[in-house]
Every structure is written in C-alpha cells, then in structure tokens.
C-alpha cells in the first residue's frame, strides 16, 4: 500500500483549472521528485495536499485512507502527518527563529517545551544556524530563512515531508549543506515529495521522478530512465533544455 496516493486530482483557481487530473503514488520511505516547467502546477499539488486549496475532483489517500478535504477534522489529521516547506519560506515575521520552530510542536501538538527546544536547537545546528536562535526573519538572508523553514518543518516530526524548491534561493555552497540535510532524511527513511529544478540532485536522491506540464502528469519513472531516455516529446524537450546548462 502506498504511503500517499494521488489519483485524478483536479483543482481550480476561480475559473482557471490549474490541475486537470494528476495521479501518482509515493511509497513509504520513498523520495519522489516533482519536476516540470514554471506554472505547471507543482506548488499547487503540494498546497492541495496540506489542505490549502480544496480539490475539485479526484481522491487523495494517505496510508490507504481516502481524505475528505471538506471535513475539517480530517484535514487537521492530514496536516498532522505532513509538513511543508514553502517556496517563499513563509517564516512568521513576528517571531524569532526559535519561536518559529517551536510554536506548532509546543502549542498545537502539545509536546513538552523543553524537549521541543532541545530538538529545535539540534535541527538548527544541523542546518548550520545554531547561532541564530534569536534572530528575526528580516535579519536573515534568503538562504538562512530557507534553512529555518526546513528546521521548522522537521520539528513537526512529520511522516511525509513536502519540499517546494528549497534550494532555489541558496548560493552553491549552501545548496550542498541543505541537500546534505535532505540526503540524511532520505537515508533515515522519511517519505518526501520534492519539487526541484536541480536535476543533478534529483538524479542522485529521487527514487522516482514525476514530470508535470500544464496541470497534469506527462511522464514518470526512475530518474535514470526519465532524465536520460524520456519517452514523450514534451519531456525530451524539457529535460533537453534543462540539462544542457
């Protein structure tokens, strides 16, 4: 049974259909990379999974159970199992780093404050920000904020981690640091969906690659296959452009 199963999911912003039947599965402990051109709906898929955008059709199953996104209790339960790192980090501007990371685990999940703070310190150390516990987001660079956002998501201790282009704002040195963290998580068996334009990294870390275009899945398969021998013309075109530089 897959950990997460998305079948024929549709979504719209007003009258604009941005997802027109998206299907893919993620097994427990698997890392799936969502790739595709800008505006193809990758972020929308992640937003939909955590209940920020109600699906207009199709089903999402978590551990085999269908999720009814109209039911608040069910949405809360799903959010309890997933954590998302947004493309624009979305750190709470009115809280320092430590508060950003510990807020939800302590106040929402009701875990012990001491324990959570210890965990937060370890996580922030791991992303190289152990000395920034009391800095505010507007005092941090984009890359630093991105790493805090990752620590914040990990502090929720999710089963499934959703990462939206977490390396796009980082300089090359930091990219490696962040990728190292993700690599560790993959080794530890965290189920992950990862949106990325870093094809080298995708090739290295992803178990499977799902390519999207214009709101639906074009092609999917193991990275070696899909990156080097795409079957569809659309995928050949996309990877041809992206891998050339």
């Amino acid at each position: 049974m897959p950990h997460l199963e998305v079948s024929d999911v549709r979504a719209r912003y007003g009258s604009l259909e941005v997802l027109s039947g998206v299907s893919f599965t993620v097994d427990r402990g698997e890392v799936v990379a969502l790739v595709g051109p800008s505006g193809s709906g990758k972020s929308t898929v992640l937003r939909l999974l955590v209940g920020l955008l109600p699906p207009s059709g199709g089903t999402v199953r978590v551990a085999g159970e269908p999720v009814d996104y109209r039911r608040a209790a069910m949405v809360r339960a799903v959010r309890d199992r997933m954590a998302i790192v947004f493309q624009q980090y979305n750190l709470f501007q009115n809280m320092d780093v430590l508060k950003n990371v510990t807020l939800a685990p302590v106040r929402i999940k009701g875990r012990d404050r001491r324990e959570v703070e210890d965990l937060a310190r370890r996580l922030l150390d791991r992303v190289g920000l152990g000395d920034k516990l009391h800095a505010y987001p507007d005092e941090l660079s984009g890359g630093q904020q991105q790493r805090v956002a990752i620590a914040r998501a990990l502090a929720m201790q999710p089963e499934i981690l959703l990462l939206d282009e977490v390396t796009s704002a980082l300089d090359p040195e930091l990219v490696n640091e962040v990728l190292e963290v993700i690599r560790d998580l993959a080794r530890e068996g965290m189920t992950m969906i990862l949106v990325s334009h870093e094809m080298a990294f995708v090739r290295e870390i992803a178990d499977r690659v799902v390519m999207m275009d214009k709101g639906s899945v074009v092609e999917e398969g193991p990275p070696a296959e899909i990156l080097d021998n795409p079957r569809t013309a659309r995928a050949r075109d996309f990877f041809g452009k992206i891998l050339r530089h």
Partner: protein
Amino acid sequence: MDRIIAQLPRFFSERNLILLLESAGLTLAMTALGCLIGFFLALVLVYLRKTPGLWALPLRLVCVAYVEVFRRIPFLVIVYLVLFFIQTVIRDASLFTVAVIAICLYATAYTAEIIRAGLESVPQQQIDAATAMNLGRFRTTLWVVLPQSMPVIVPPSVAFAVGFIKDTALVSQVGVFELTFRGKELNNQGFSAVLVFGTIAFVYFLMSWPLSLYGQYLETRLAAPRSQRRPRKIRQS
C-alpha cells in the same frame, strides 16, 4: 473687552481651575475608556466578519451593517439613543456610563475599518504557513496576523481616539460634567463667553495637539522595519 479683563482674576480662581482640570480629566478618561473598549469590540467584530462559510452569511451581514450604519449616524444622535435606551433598561445609569457606551459604539464602527485594513495587509503566505501547521483561524489571527498588523493598525487608531477627544464635547448636551459642560456652566454664571470658551478651546488644544503629534511620531516609528526599531541585541552562543 474691559469686562473680560475685569473678570480675569475671578475667573481664574483656584476653584474654577480645579473644576476645569477635573472636567478635562473626565473628558480624557471617557475618550480613552470608550475608544479602548471600542478597539477590542472592533477586533471581535472584524474577526466575526471574516467567518468563512455560507452558514455565517447572516453574521457577516450584521457585522457589515453595524459598521456601515454607525459610521453614518451623528455622534449626537447616538448619545441620545444610548441615553434614552439605557433609561428604559437601567433607571439609575450614570451619565458617565452613557457617554462611555456612546463613544464605544461609535469607536467600534470606525476602528473596525482600520483593523480590517490592517489584517488584510498581512501577506497570505503567512496565513498559509500557519494553516498548514494546523494553527486554525483563531490562533492564526491571534499569534501571526494580529502581531504583524499592529504597526498598521495602531497609528490610525490612536489618531482616531485623539481626534475623538474633541467630538466628546457633544456629550455635554446630556449633562455629563466634562469640559464643555463646565464651560457652559461658567458662562451661565455670568463669565464672558469669549473668556470661557477661549479658555476651554485652549484646554482642548493642550490635550489634543501633543497627542496628535505623538500619533504622527508613532506612525513614522512603526513604519520602520523591525530590525531598525528594536535595539539590536548581539548575542553570542
């Protein structure tokens, strides 16, 4: 003119000065109290107004109607309505209570618009992040949206309250012993209207002007980004 000069020593007697000072205090007190309670009621009103879902439509309409109606009725009419309405409910309600309730009803409607604009100034991404962490609407508002919108909400709210110090002069009409009422009293005792109302105007000015300057200062100060506002603490660990 001669009459005014002749009256000067008697007018600025210790008794009259204390009277004016006390009534100025009352003016400030009822403005502050009414606007403060109004501010919190406005927060509740705006929160209710943003309740999602079809079932809450009547609730939203009531909130919109409250704001629209009370911003379009003269304060004097509200004062009279409160006065006569309260008398049918509580026989011996004090006039001070009447004044505070009237100010509060009015301030709620005006501050609600300020607060709504403030809350809407917070980027949607902040709300999304909180929602994805299961914060819920109430906690998201309380912990994330409200703190971030305070710099936008506070200066105009203060400006409203300061501006309202003057408008409370109208409650003298129902006999609250505030500044304007005392002025009328002194005028009736035979003191020159120029002298009395000139002095009263000056006292209002002394309350209103410094506070409005403070409001302008708040605005420029809060407009600065946090890192420049907060004295920078350099921490080593």
